[in-house]
């Protein structure tokens, strides 16, 4: 029997995310954003992180505001339904963080290159754009076959992938469903994969549906049980997006003073996610967000 990889989230973050680590997260773009893990990083006052992601929603903005970040390699940092991320905006304007500009496609290709073990991948996106002036990992090359100009996207190998999934076993075998974003290549590219999961289940449950496993369990370093771990983002099969939270965050992140208050109340003064859901979010909100109209798949047969 292989050893269990189950850890409390605080231990996993302490052990595998040192100051200065590069961390890919928010990989499903809008769903399954690992807020529980991100807030634990803030509580542990990690410094000088490099954050890697596609559109990253407000978690990157929160980590920047909490001064955990020195560099960002991402396509977009803001608040999906309202636009600007104010902490990110101030940090860029004051040149407190370095940003390498990507598009959603180029960040996917950078991770895919690493996941394939090649130094770069070619693409036809972004040619002529100024992304090339703000990203040393984008260059133009000549296709050896056609002579056409192509963009080359340099591989990115993150130290850590921080991924939220619906369910996992104690060995790191996991099911993730919904739209997957860049999750697959992010996990395959990273040196360490930390999963937070809505549910910890028996291995036999994961084994019933191997196509739902998007990266093999042997790549996973740690599994952390984190119910509501992606709130306020949605998790297919578990809960909907809390739009109000994103709208309120826009207001509470506009000024540094208000953001500081927000940070104390929502992150620093709560011990963990369970307390956060109980004290800050509350039962009636959680009931509002649960899945009201379940939709199950027709079973498929993997027998022999």
């Amino acid at each position: 029997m292989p050893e269990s990889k189950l850890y409390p989230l605080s231990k996993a973050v302490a052990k595998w995310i040192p100051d200065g680590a590069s961390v890919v997260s928010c990989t499903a773009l809008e769903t399954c954003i690992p807020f529980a893990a991100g807030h634990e990083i803030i509580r542990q006052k990690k410094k000088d992180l490099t954050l890697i992601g596609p559109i990253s929603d407000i978690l990157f903005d929160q980590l920047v505001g909490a001064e955990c970040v020195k560099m960002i390699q991402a396509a977009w940092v803001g608040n999906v339904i309202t636009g600007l991320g104010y902490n990110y905006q101030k940090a860029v304007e004051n040149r407190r963080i370095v940003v390498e500009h990507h598009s959603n496609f180029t960040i996917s290709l950078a991770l895919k290159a690493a996941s394939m073990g090649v130094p770069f991948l070619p693409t036809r996106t972004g040619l002529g754009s100024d992304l090339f002036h703000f990203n040393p990992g984008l260059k133009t090359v000549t296709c050896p076959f056609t002579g056409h100009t192509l963009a080359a996207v340099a591989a990115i190998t993150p130290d850590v992938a921080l991924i939220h999934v619906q369910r996992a076993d104690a060995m790191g075998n996991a099911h993730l469903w919904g739209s997957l974003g860049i999750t697959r290549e992010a996990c395959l590219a990273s040196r360490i994969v930390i999963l937070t999961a809505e549910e910890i289940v028996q291995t036999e449950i994961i084994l019933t549906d191997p196509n739902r496993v998007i990266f093999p369990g042997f790549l996973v370093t740690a599994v952390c049980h984190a119910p509501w771990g992606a709130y306020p983002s949605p998790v297919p099969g578990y809960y909907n997006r809390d739009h109000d939270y994103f709208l309120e965050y826009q207001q509470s992140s506009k000024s540094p003073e208000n953001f500081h208050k927000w940070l104390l109340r929502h992150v620093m003064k709560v011990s963990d996610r369970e307390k956060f859901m109980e004290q800050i979010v509350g039962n009636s909100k959680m009931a509002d967000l649960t899945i009201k109209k379940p939709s199950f798949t027709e079973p498929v047969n993997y027998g022999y």
Partner: protein
Amino acid sequence: MDTDTREYNFAQLMVAAAAREIQNGEIIFVGMRLPLLGFLLAKSLHAPDAVGIYELGIVRDRVAPVPILTMGDLPNLYQAAWLADTADAMSLLQQGRVDVSFLGGAQVDRFGNLNTTLIGDWNGSISSLPGSGGACDLASLAQRHILVMAHEERRFVERVDYITSPGYGDGPGWRQRVGLPRGGPSTVITTLGIFHFDPVDCQMVLTSVHPGVTVKMVQDHTGWPLKIANPVQITPPPTLSELDMLAQFDPKGFWTGGPAR
């Protein structure tokens, strides 16, 4: 099409105009915000066979069963035609299989180059914006793309400070020269009017003003001497059926609320 009119606002007019750009059967790469509604509107009215692709890795050929605010809302995943990777959606785009994509922006210039990254001098004082997301990919790789944005003088500038999403660069031949495989902006829909691009010099041309807007008002809010079609059309206002349908998709008016114009 019904011709009775009802009060409406600019957001509703822009969404209706965006929807009318979609032909039945086309493959659409759907951007955030107003384009989200433009696709739903077209799909429900004149383009029932249109297919929507979303950068999260979603393909839909049915309208979501209940209103959504953003493409990652779970109703937009329910009974999707395909749930996959972002790279899968982008690969369809890169192959040339997407007819039209929609994007919004902060700053645009006469050649339709779009900036959503930073305003100001690169080495001096800047205002930072959220960045590309998928916009750069949508503008690089679709057969054509459509811009939907507010029309203000600070947004309509002679030359954008940063090209996030390439238009026609500095003019004819630029896209081919830099290696882009196809495409370019076909239409710009703003709060004041609608623009197309001159096939010869690749410059934006004002082709339609919204009801109550004059050509002079558009020029006054544009940072370069505009090319103007002769004659300039008046944008048809949203029809009753378009407004009714929009009210279903955006019942609280999150995207299309605001006072009537």
